[in-house]
């Protein structure tokens, strides 16, 4: 099944040139069953990535462009009175899908944001006292502009926590950009992307990730990292137990993608920036959080009690 994962990576690589690591992270996030937040400036390929992900997973998807005048009902759906049947009928909103592309989530009001985020956490929505389950699997791929941009409502810490990873794509490399300039908009290739992972495979992968082995030595390293975020490094606040669990879970998925049935420290280090940054530094700018995490990974000993200097 690793082959299909790698094939999926390659497929997305066709539309997002030179971003292998970010693509792999995004895919890992979804394989771990987590929601993904992509943060970057406009025009960096956020939406392209989200589209491509949905496409290679062969999932039904909906795209919602968030605006500041949007109401919760615009996402979740509304009940209207049907005069013919003389009862209320529910018109499901765009959230009833497998992959929801929530574009520019920080452009909408906190009220609407929290309606979506509740759906993310509970995998269900409650309307008019009735609970309606969402389709399975259910992923949210949200994109947002950096918070310093005009007209944005930044997500509070508690809601950022719902996203397993926050990644940013960054500028493409000169080589990749040259290809883009020559070949035109790569987004046109999205419809032609092939599905690489079936629904059944996806469920199987999620199951296998969950049962992947994390040895005592690795757990000890994880604990040292978590301890350092809480008491040693200059983070605003440390990693919560849920955050630590998310880190381990993401590392397991990363190990799975790498074709291993156990987690090694590199897996933790690979996913740490994407998993930790938005959990420990609140509304801080991404850049400084990234530097803090780089320091963290440099200063926490991978193998405790070794003779390393």
């Amino acid at each position, binding site marked *: 099944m690793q082959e299909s994962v790698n094939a999926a990576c390659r497929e997305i690589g066709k539309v997002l040139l030179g971003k292998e690591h970010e693509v792999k992270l995004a895919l890992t996030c979804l394989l771990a069953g987590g929601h993904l937040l992509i943060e970057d400036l406009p025009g960096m390929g956020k939406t392209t990535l989200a589209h491509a992900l949905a496409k290679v997973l062969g999932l039904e998807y909906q795209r919602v462009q968030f605006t500041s005048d949007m109401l919760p009902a615009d996402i979740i759906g509304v009940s209207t009175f049907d005069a013919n049947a003389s009862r209320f009928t529910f018109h499901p909103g765009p959230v009833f899908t497998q992959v929801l592309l929530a574009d520019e989530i920080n452009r909408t009001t906190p009220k609407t944001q929290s309606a979506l985020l509740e759906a993310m956490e509970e995998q269900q929505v409650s309307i008019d006292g009735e609970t309606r389950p969402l389709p399975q699997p259910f992923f949210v791929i949200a994109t947002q502009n950096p918070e310093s941009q005009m007209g944005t409502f930044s997500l509070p810490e508690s809601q950022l926590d719902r996203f397993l990873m926050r990644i940013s794509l960054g500028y493409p490399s000169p080589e990749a950009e040259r290809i883009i300039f020559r070949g035109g908009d790569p987004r046109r290739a999205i419809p032609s992307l092939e599905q690489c992972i079936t629904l059944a495979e996806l469920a199987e992968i999620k199951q296998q990730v969950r049962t992947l082995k994390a040895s005592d030595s690795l757990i000890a390293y994880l604990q040292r990292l978590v301890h350092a975020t809480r008491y040693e*490094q*200059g983070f605003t606040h440390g990693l919560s137990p849920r955050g630590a669990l998310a880190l381990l879970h993401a590392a397991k998925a990363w190990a799975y993608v790498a074709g291993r049935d*156990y987690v090694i420290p*590199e897996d933790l280090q690979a996913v740490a920036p994407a998993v930790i940054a938005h959990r420990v530094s609140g509304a801080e700018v991404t850049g400084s959080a990234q530097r803090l995490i780089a320091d963290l*990974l440099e200063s926490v000993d991978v*193998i405790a009690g070794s003779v390393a200097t």
Partner: protein
Amino acid sequence: MSASTEKLSRQGLIWMLLAQAIVLLPLVFEVPVWLTLLAIATGVWRWKIATAGWRFPGKLARLILVLLVCAGLLFSFSGSFGMQSMLSLLIAGFVLKLIELKRPGDFYLLCYLAYFVTGAQLLFAASLPSSVYGLVSLLAVTGVLLVNNGSVARLGVVKQCQRLGVFALQALPIMLVLFFVVPRIGSLWTIPLNKSAGQTGVSDSMAPGDFSNLMRSGELAFRVSFDGPIPAPQQLYWRALVFDDFDGRTWRQSHAQDVQRGRASAQWRNWQNAVELSGEPISYQVLLEPTAKQWLYALPTFSELPESVRVSPGLTLYETERVNQRKQYRVSSVLDYRLQPQGLDQPQTMQALALPEGYNPQTRRRAQQWRTEATDERQLMQRVLGYFNQRFRYTLQPSTLGEHTVDDFLWQSQAGFCEHFAGSFVFFMRAAGIPARVVVGYQGGQINSNDGYLVVRQYDAHAWAEVWLAGEGWVRVDPTAAVAPERIEQGVEYSLSDDDNQLLGNVFSRRFQMLGDLQLRWDALNYRWQLWVMGYDNAAQQALLQKWFGRVSPWMLALVVTAVVALVSLVVLLPLLRSSGRRLAPAERAYARVEKAMTRCGQPRYVGEPPRQYAARISRERPDLADDLNAITALFERASYGDSKTALARLQSAARRFKPSRL
């Protein structure tokens, strides 16, 4: 440029420059002016390097700078070797290092130098304010170290200050242990502190006009704490020197040279036989400001003296060394005494009657005349003192005296202060055939009611006379008391006209009550500091330790120190030990063996480097080790993270076989 230097050149540099300025400020007065300018110049230069893209000086420029500075130092101190020149050399290095400040290593060196320079501050001043300033400097330098430390650098200012406070508090117990327990080791060598000899104080000769300079100074002379109540002002004659040699203008000690050269004749070994004591002794402690002279001040006569102190033939105290630092000593005195009542020997009598030929003929004639008119010596003395009382005026602005100073004073100007009265009185007595001599020192003092001790200032300097009477010995006669009794009873400022009072030292604090009161309080604080902190010497330490632990042997002391140090370091180190003190799993132990071998051949693993990355890096740097290390790493991963038993066994044997060669 690495990230660490980048960080340094911004915020860190500002703090570094600031701390350097703080550390150097009090030393500015001790070093040549051009060194201060150099410090400012290097500071500006370094700042411009960081902000305006100026360049670091090249090798040649640095060499020229160093040579110039060395030449400047040689020129400024004309090659003399002393504390100031050594300090200047240190400071020159300290400020020049700034324009070499590139790597983190340079930065740490600069910080440690700053600590050293902070210590040097205390060489020149050990008062309470300068100690507080030293503490501020210390905190500033530690702050700079903190601000430039990776993880602390990102904290807010408040948190950084907190961290600094925690550091200071952690250092406190160590400081206390060092202060209280660690023996004071005497200096192994001394560097002369070539401080200008501008010390005021009673000098070893007395010529007309000498004292008036002294009276204009409000500087502290010494402070005294009495064990019991403070005696009446009339009894507080702080004896320092006896002048028995007169050359017509100046009074001197006849044995001055002997004292200076430490000759045996300077010392009066059996002085105790020559005094008769009656009454209870009073004990007191004197804290003498540095005088650069040998003599000490005390009330006659003495029943108990510190060991190192000697007694001169004039019944005054002196030290074998000059008092260049604040000195503390304890004396017990009996105020009611008779000195040499049995009689003087021939040379002593000769000395006490000697007069220079050809001076003051009028006084000599008059003295002989009065002598014949008087029935006994006492009556003659009364007549002279009565004459003083009727005709004379006490003033700090006497008219100048001619060649025959005593004649001019006694029969013409008739206005002067203690030195005139004492000098001419003794001259008169000698001319009348009565052995007499001049005694100088201080008289009275101001009681600091805050702490109940006595403050004696330079304007309390005084001269009086001693006359030898058969059967009574040397009797103190204070002719000034005959003219201005309030000088003796209340202090010098009460005996002077307003005009004269202006001349006296400390005009302002005496004029304004509140200012004077503040000054007294400040003095009390300083006195306590000097007595308890600066005065905590070996003897005081012994006494304190004895009080705490009973009899202290050096072994015991060493044990206590070691125990305390061990305890403190344990408390500090425990969290560190705990965090890395996990017991190693077998796979980790095997891998640690490999790492140890790699460290030994100069290729250690970085702290945050996972094994696989490490192996990849080593493969690039040491291709010869690549195969072994990659194999070991793969085994380690499977053993440690995949929990594979077979991999563990193979890892252990591979680790044992692993013998990397050094390059």
